[in-house]
C-alpha cells in the first residue's frame, strides 16, 4: 500500500515537494520513517554474513537509484542519507552518496541540513576533495541569522574542514567570538581550537582574542578556551606564566563551588574544567619554583575537597596527584599526594588500583618508602585476574630494594612462589622478578634453591624461566652489567619479546644454556608428540632438548658438512627452522651432525677422495640412495636412526614414503629436462652424459640437486661434480666465493670443454641479449684478469662515435666496485692522448686504478680504464658520468661524454658467515622487515629461488634448513644484512634484519623483484622457452627479467 502511495507521489514531484512539509500524506511519511527500521530489522533477522551482504547490496542499489533520481525530494534524501550512514557503519561502501550528502547540507531545511552535515562529517575525511564543495555552504550558514544554522556550521567546521580553506571562514568565526549567545561563542572558540590544531600559524594573530574568551562571563566559553591554552602551554609554557594567577583563581572558584549548578557533575563542580586547569597548572609549574608557589594552596584545597567517595573525585584526585608531582616539589603536598595514591592502590575497584599502581611506579622513583607501605597490597595484586595489573605490580619490585636487602625480597618472592595459591603464570612473572633482583643480592642461597626447585618444574614456562635464571646466575658479572641496579628494569618485565636480552641470551646459549621456547612452539611440541607423522621436525627436536638437557636442540643437519645433504634432508622432512626462537637453536655443542638415516648415508659419501671421477661418484650416490630406500643400514646407522627417531618422533620410515611421493611429482620433470639436455648436447654424448641421464631418470629420490648436478656435469667441471647441490649452495667455498659465472668462465678458459658453447648461452648475464655481437666477441678478449676472479656485469656500450666505442662493465670486487671502461678503437688509425675522466659524484669515492693511462690506442684495439668506486653515503640509485677525449692523427681533439648508472646493489657483497654467526648477528640487529611473497611452486622453489637471489643480488647462502633458508650479505664497506626465507605453502616469508634501517627495505624490494620474475619463470616453465633456450633455469630467469 505504502509503495503505491510512494509511486504516486514520485510521479507528482512538484506537488509532493510543495505539500509534503505542510500536509504531506501521512502514509508516505510513515513509509519513509520506517525504512531504516525495516532495514535494521531485516539485517537483524539474518543469520549469515553472506545474507547480510546480499541484503545491503540490494539496499545500496536501491539507494543509489533513489538518490540519483531527479524526483527524489530532500526529505526522501534525508532518509536515504540515514540509511547510507547505517550501511557505511556496517562496513559497506556508500561513496556514491557523498556528493548527495553535501547537496543535502546545502539545500535542505534545518532538519535535512543537520542530517546532511552529519553524513558529511561521517563520510568524508579532512583531505577529501568533495569537501571543497562544502565550503560555500559553511560560509553561507555562518552568516545566517538562524542560530541553529550557525551552530551547525561551527560544528562541522570543528569536525572536518579542509586546511587550505581556513582563511575563507576564519574572519566569520572570529566575529562569532563576540556573539551575544554563549553557545555560539563557545563553539567558535572550539572551532578556532580545531584550526589551531591543524594549522597553528593561521590563528596566530587571534591569540589576544583567546584571552578574551578566557575572561568570558560564560563558564562554558571560558572552559572551551582552556583547550587552546592547554595546547599552547604544552608547546611553550614560558609565554603564559603570567596567566598562572588567573588559572589559579578560576580553579579556586571552581573548587569552591562558585559555578552555576548546571556545571556540576554528580554534585562535583565542573570536573572537566578542574582537570583541565590542573593539567595546565602542572605544565606551568614544572621546574619553576615561583610559579609553583602560586598554586600550592589551590592544589592543597583540591586534594582536600576531593574526598567524596566518588568516581569523578578520583579522577580529579588523580590529576591533582599528577600535578603535585610535576610542579616544583613541596614536601607537604607530596605527602598528601602519596596518601592519595595509597587510597588508589588500596581501593577494591580495579580501575583505581590500576591507576594507583601506575602512579606508584612513577612516584616511587622519588620516594621509595611509599612502595614499602604498600608492599602487601602489591603482593596481593600479584595474583590479580587481570594480567595488566600483574604486570604493573612486578615493576614495583625494583623499588622495594632501597630499604630492604634484595635477599629479603627474594626470600619473600620465593615463599610466594612455593605457595600453591598463585597461578603458574604469576610464578613465571615472579621468577622474572627474582632474576632482576639476583645481581644485587650478595648471597644467593635462595636463588640457588629456587633454581634447583624450578628447573625441574613440570611447567615448561617456569622451567624455562628458571633455566634462564640459572644460566644468568652462572655468570654473575655479566648479569650485573646487564641488569644495572640503578635502572628500573620494568621494560624487562613488560617487554614480552625481551628483545634487550637477546644478545645476552645468544651469548649464554652459545655457551650451552638451555633454549627459550616461545609459547606457540611449546604448544606445537605438545601437539606434535601425539602425531605419527609430523611436518615440523624442528618443533619436535625441541622436545629432545627437554630430555637431553644441555644438548643443543639443533636437529638441523648443518650445511657445514660437505656432503651437505641438508637440503635434501630438509626437503624430505620439511624441516623448519624457527627464527623466532633462533636464540635457542644454537647450543654449546653446535649442531648434531647427523640426525637421520639418509644423512648418515651421505656421510659415507663424504670421504670419497676428490680425485674420484664423476661416474664413481654418481654411482655411489645412486647406491646410497638405493640403500636408504631398502633401509639397509649399518650398525652405526641404526644407532643414528634410533637417535633420529627419538628426535623426530614418528619420522622413521615414513620419511621415505613422503620422500617418494614427492619425488614422483618431480621425476617426470627431470626426465624431460634430461632429455632436452641430451638433445641439446646430442653430438657430445659422452660416457658422462649417459651416466648422468640414466642417473637422473632412474633414481626417483633425486631432487632439484640432480638437476644442478646435471648442469655441473655438463660443464665438465670435475671439482663441482663432487658436491651435490647443497654443498655448492652452502659451504663449498669455491663456489660461493666465486659465483657460478666465474666458474664457467674458468672452465671455459682453462679446459676447452665440449660444452663451452652451451655454457656461454646459459650463463650470459641479463644484458647480454641487448648487447651487440661485437661486444660479445670483444668480451672474451677484453675482460680483465679480475673478471675471471670476480663477478662482473656484462659489457655495455655507453657511448660511441665513428671511431671509438666505449663500453663499460662493473666488476664486483670484494672490497669495492671496480668500474671498467673499455675503449675500442674502431678506426684504422691510432688514437693519441686518449684520456678518460670521471666526474666526481657526491655519494662515491672514485679512485683511478693504475695501469690505464697509456695515452695511445692502437688501431682496432681495446684499451681499458679502471676506476674503483666506493660508496660514501648510502643511496639507492646513483649516476657516474665522465667523458673521454682523444686526438685523431694529431689533428683535432674529440670529446665524448657518457654516464653509467650505479645502484646500491652494486655495493652488496656476500657475507660469508657460518650459521652460528648468523644466529648471533641476527639477534643483535634491530632493524627488522618482514614480508610475505607468493610463490608458485613452494617446495622445489626454495633452493632455486635462493640460487637466483645469490646470483642476482650477490647474497651468500648461509644455510638451507628444510623449508628455510638463511642468507647474508653486506653493504660495502661493512653494513651487514641478514635474510631469512621461509617457505610456507605457496608463500615465501621474507625476513630481513640489519644494523642499517634502510638496507632491509631496499633488499626486500630487490628480492621481491627477483622472486616475481622467478615466479613468472616458473609459470612459463613448460613453455617452449624452457626447452629451446636452455635447460638452465637461470638463463630463463635472465631472459624473463629482460622481458619484464
Amino acid at each position, binding site marked *: 500500500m505504502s509503495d503505491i502511495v510512494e509511486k504516486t507521489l514520485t510521479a507528482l514531484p512538484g506537488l509532493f515537494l510543495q505539500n509534503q512539509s505542510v500536509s504531506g500524506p501521512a502514509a508516505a511519511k510513515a513509509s519513509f520513517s520506517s525504512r531504516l527500521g525495516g532495514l535494521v530489522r531485516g539485517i537483524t533477522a539474518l543469520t549469515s554474513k553472506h545474507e547480510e551482504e546480499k541484503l545491503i547490496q540490494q539496499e545500496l542499489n536501491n539507494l543509489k537509484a533513489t538518490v540519483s533520481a531527479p524526483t527524489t525530494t530532500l526529505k526522501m534524501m534525508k532518509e536515504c542519507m540515514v540509511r547510507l550512514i547505517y550501511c557505511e557503519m556496517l562496513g559497506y561502501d556508500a561513496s556514491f552518496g557523498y556528493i548527495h550528502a553535501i547537496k543535502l547540507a546545502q539545500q535542505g531545511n534545518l*532538519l535535512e541540513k543537520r542530517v546532511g552535515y552529519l553524513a558529511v562529517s561521517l563520510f568524508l575525511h579532512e583531505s577529501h576533495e568533495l569537501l571543497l564543495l562544502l565550503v560555500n555552504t559553511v560560509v553561507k550558514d555562518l552568516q545566517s541569522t538562524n542560530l541553529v544554522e550557525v551552530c551547525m556550521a561551527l560544528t562541522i567546521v570543528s*569536525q572536518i574542514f579542509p586546511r587550505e580553506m581556513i582563511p575563507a571562514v576564519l574572519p566569520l568565526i572570529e566575529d562569532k567570538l563576540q556573539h551575544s549567545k554563549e553557545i555560539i561563542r563557545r563553539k567558535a572558540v572550539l572551532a578556532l581550537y580545531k584550526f589551531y590544531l591543524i594549522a597553528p600559524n593561521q590563528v596566530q594573530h587571534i591569540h589576544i582574542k583567546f584571552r578574551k574568551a578566557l575572561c568570558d562571563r560564560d563558564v562554558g566559553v571560558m572552559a572551551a578556551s582552556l*583547550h587552546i591554552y592547554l595546547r599552547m602551554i604544552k608547546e611553550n609554557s614560558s609565554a603564559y606564566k603570567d596567566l598562572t594567577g588567573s588559572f589559579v583563581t578560576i580553579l579556586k572558584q571552581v573548587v569552591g563551588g562558585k559555578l552555576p549548578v548546571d556545571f556540576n557533575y554528580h554534585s562535583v563542580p565542573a570536573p572537566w574544567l578542574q582537570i583541565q586547569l590542573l593539567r595546565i597548572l602542572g605544565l606551568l609549574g614544572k621546574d619553576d619554583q615561583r610559579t609553583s608557589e602560586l598554586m600550592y594552596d589551590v592544589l592543597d584545597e583540591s586534594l582536600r575537597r576531593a574526598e567524596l567517595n566518588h*568516581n*569523578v573525585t578520583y579522577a580529579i584526585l588523580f590529576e591533582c596527584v599528577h600535578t603535585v608531582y610535576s610542579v616544583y616539589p613541596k614536601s607537604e603536598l607530596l605527602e598528601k599526594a602519596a596518601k592519595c595514591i595509597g587510597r588508589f592502590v588500596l581501593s577494591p575497584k580495579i580501575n583505581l588500583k590500576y591507576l594507583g599502581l601506575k602512579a606508584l611506579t612513577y612516584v616511587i622513583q622519588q620516594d621509595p618508602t611509599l612502595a614499602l607501605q604498600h608492599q602487601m597490597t602489591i603482593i596481593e595484586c600479584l595474583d590479580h585476574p587481570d594480567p595488566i595489573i600483574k604486570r604493573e605490580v612486578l615493576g614495583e619490585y625494583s623499588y622495594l630494594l632501597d630499604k630492604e636487602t634484595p635477599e629479603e625480597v627474594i626470600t619473600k618472592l620465593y615463599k610466594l612462589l612455593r605457595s600453591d595459591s598463585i597461578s603458574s603464570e604469576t610464578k613465571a612473572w615472579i621468577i622474572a622478578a627474582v632474576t632482576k633482583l639476583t645481581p644485587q643480592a650478595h648471597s644467593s642461597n635462595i636463588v640457588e634453591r629456587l633454581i634447583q626447585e624450578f628447573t625441574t618444574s613440570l611447567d615448561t614456562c617456569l622451567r624455562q624461566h628458571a633455566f634462564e635464571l640459572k644460566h644468568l646466575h652462572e655468570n654473575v658479572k655479566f648479569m650485573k652489567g646487564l641488569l644495572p641496579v640503578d635502572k628500573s628494569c620494568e621494560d624487562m618485565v613488560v617487554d614480552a619479546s625481551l628483545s634487550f636480552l637477546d644478545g645476552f641470551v645468544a651469548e649464554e646459549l652459545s655457551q650451552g644454556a638451555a633454549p627459550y621456547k616461545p609459547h606457540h612452539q611449546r604448544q606445537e611440541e605438545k601437539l606434535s608428540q601425539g602425531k605419527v607423522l609430523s611436518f615440523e621436525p624442528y618443533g619436535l627436536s625441541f622436545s629432545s632438548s627437554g630430555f637431553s638437557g644441555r644438548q643443543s636442540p639443533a636437529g638441523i643437519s648443518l650445511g657445514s658438512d660437505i656432503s651437505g645433504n641438508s637440503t635434501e634432508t630438509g626437503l624430505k622432512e620439511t624441516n623448519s627452522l624457527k627464527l623466532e626462537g633462533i636464540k635457542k637453536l644454537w647450543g654449546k655443542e653446535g649442531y648434531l651432525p647427523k640426525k637421520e638415516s639418509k644423512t648418515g648415508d651421505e656421510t659415507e659419501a663424504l670421504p670419497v677422495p676428490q680425485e674420484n671421477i664423476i661416474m664413481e661418484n654418481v654411482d655411489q650416490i645412486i647406491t646410497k640412495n638405493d640403500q636408504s630406500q631398502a633401509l639397509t643400514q649399518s650398525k652405526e646407522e641404526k644407532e643414528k636412526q634410533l637417535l633420529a627417531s627419538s628426535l623426530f618422533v614418528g619420522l622413521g620410515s615414513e620419511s621415505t614414503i613422503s620422500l617418494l611421493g614427492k619425488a614422483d611429482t618431480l621425476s617426470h620433470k627431470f626426465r624431460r629436462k634430461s632429455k632436452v639436455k641430451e638433445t641439446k648436447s646430442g653430438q657430445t654424448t659422452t660416457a658422462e652424459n649417459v651416466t648422468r641421464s640414466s642417473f637422473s631418470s632412474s633414481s626417483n629420490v633425486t631432487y632439484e640437486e640432480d638437476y644442478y648436478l646435471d648442469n655441473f656435469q655438463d660443464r665438465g667441471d670435475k671439482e663441482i661434480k663432487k658436491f651435490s647441490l647443497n654443498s655448492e649452495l652452502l659451504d663449498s667455498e669455491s663456489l660461493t666465493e666465486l659465483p657460478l659465472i666465474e666458474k664457467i668462465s674458468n672452465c671455459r678458459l682453462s679446459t676447452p670443454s665440449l660444452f663451452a658453447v652451451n655454457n656461454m648461452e646459459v650463463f650470459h648475464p641479463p644484458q647480454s641479449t641487448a648487447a651487440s655481437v661485437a661486444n660479445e666477441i670483444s668480451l672474451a678478449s677484453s675482460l680483465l684478469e679480475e673478471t675471471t676472479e670476480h663477478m662482473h656485469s656484462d659489457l655495455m656500450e655507453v657511448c660511441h662515435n665513428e671511431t671509438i666505442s666505449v663500453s663499460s662493465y662493473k666488476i664486483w670486487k670484494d672490497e669495492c666496485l671496480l668500474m671498467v671502461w673499455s675503449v675500442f678503437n674502431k678506426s684504422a688509425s691510432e688514437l693519441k692522448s686518449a684520456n678518460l675522466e670521471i666526474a666526481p659524484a657526491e655519494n662515491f669515492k672514485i679512485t683511478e686504478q693504475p695501469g690505464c693511462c697509456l695515452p695511445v690506442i692502437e688501431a682496432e684495439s681495446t684499451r681499458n680504464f679502471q676506476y674503483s668506486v666506493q660508496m660514501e653515503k648510502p643511496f639507492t640509485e646513483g649516476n657516474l658520468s665522465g667523458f673521454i677525449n682523444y686526438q685523431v692523427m694529431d689533428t683535432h681533439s674529440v670529446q665524448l661524454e657518457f654516464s653509467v648508472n650505479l645502484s646500491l646493489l652494486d655495493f652488496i657483497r656476500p657475507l660469508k658467515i657460518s650459521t652460528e654467526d648468523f644466529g648471533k648477528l641476527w639477534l643483535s640487529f634491530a632493524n627488522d622487515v618482514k614480508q610475505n611473497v607468493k610463490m608458485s611452486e613452494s617446495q622445489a622453489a626454495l633452493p632455486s629461488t635462493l640460487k637466483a637471489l645469490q646470483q642476482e643480488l650477490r647474497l651468500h647462502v648461509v644455510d638451507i634448513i628444510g623449508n628455510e633458508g638463511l642468507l647474508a650479505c653486506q653493504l660495502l664497506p661493512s653494513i651487514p644484512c641478514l635474510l631469512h626465507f621461509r617457505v610456507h605453502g605457496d608463500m615465501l616469508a621474507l625476513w630481513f634484519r640489519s644494523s642499517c634501517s634502510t638496507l632491509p627495505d631496499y633488499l626486500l624490494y630487490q628480492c621481491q623483484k627477483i622472486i616475481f620474475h622467478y615466479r613468472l619463470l616458473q609459470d612459463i616453465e613448460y613453455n617452449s622457452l624452457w626447452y629451446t633456450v636452455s635447460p638452465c633455469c637461470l638463463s630463463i630467469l635472465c631472459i624473463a627479467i629482460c622481458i619484464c
Partner: protein
Amino acid sequence: MMRFMLLFSRQGKLRLQKWYLATSDKERKKMVRELMQVVLARKPKMCSFLEWRDLKVVYKRYASLYFCCAIEGQDNELITLELIHRYVELLDKYFGSVCELDIIFNFEKAYFILDEFLMGGDVQDTSKKSVLKAIEQADLLQEVRAGPVRKRRKRTKAKGALPTLDTLPAGPSCPFPTSLWRLAPKAPGWPAGPQALTARGGR
C-alpha cells in the same frame, strides 16, 4: 584529546563511531575490528583501561552495549570514564530510559547528542541541561516544521515493553533490548544511579 569513540554491541556489531582525527577508511576498519576483539575478550572483573597501540582505551559496558573511547597518553582515564557516563546520561535523558534499540533506530540522534557534547574530541559542554537544550532547540524546529516525528517515550510505560521489542525477531544477533541502566555495573561511586536519574528525569 579523544581520538575516537565507538559504540558496539556484545555481538561485535558497530552501533556508532566517531573519529576526531583524520583516519583512512581502511585503517578505521582495521582499528575497529582489532579493538572490538580486544575489548570483547575482556572479562567483567578486569579494569576498564587498556593500553592499545600508542593510545589508552577506556571502555565501559552498559547493558549489551560497549562504549569505548581511545584517548591520548596524557589524558585522564577516569574522567574519560565519566565522560562516557555523562554521554549515557544524556542519551538516557533524551530518549528516556535509553536502550540499545534506541541507538540503533535513531543513531543519527545519538550522533547529534554526541556532537553537542563533544566537539573535535574535547568536551564542549559539561552541563547536561545546556546540551539537551541545544538538541531540543534543533528538534523543536523539526516539530514546528514537520510535526512531531518521534514521540518521546513516557516514563509511565512498563519497563522493557518497548515499542520496537515486539517487532524485532529473535535471533542470535538480536540486540538485547534492555535499558542501558539496568545492566550498568553497579558502581558505588555513582550515587546518582539509574534510580536517581529516573526520578529526576521522569515527568
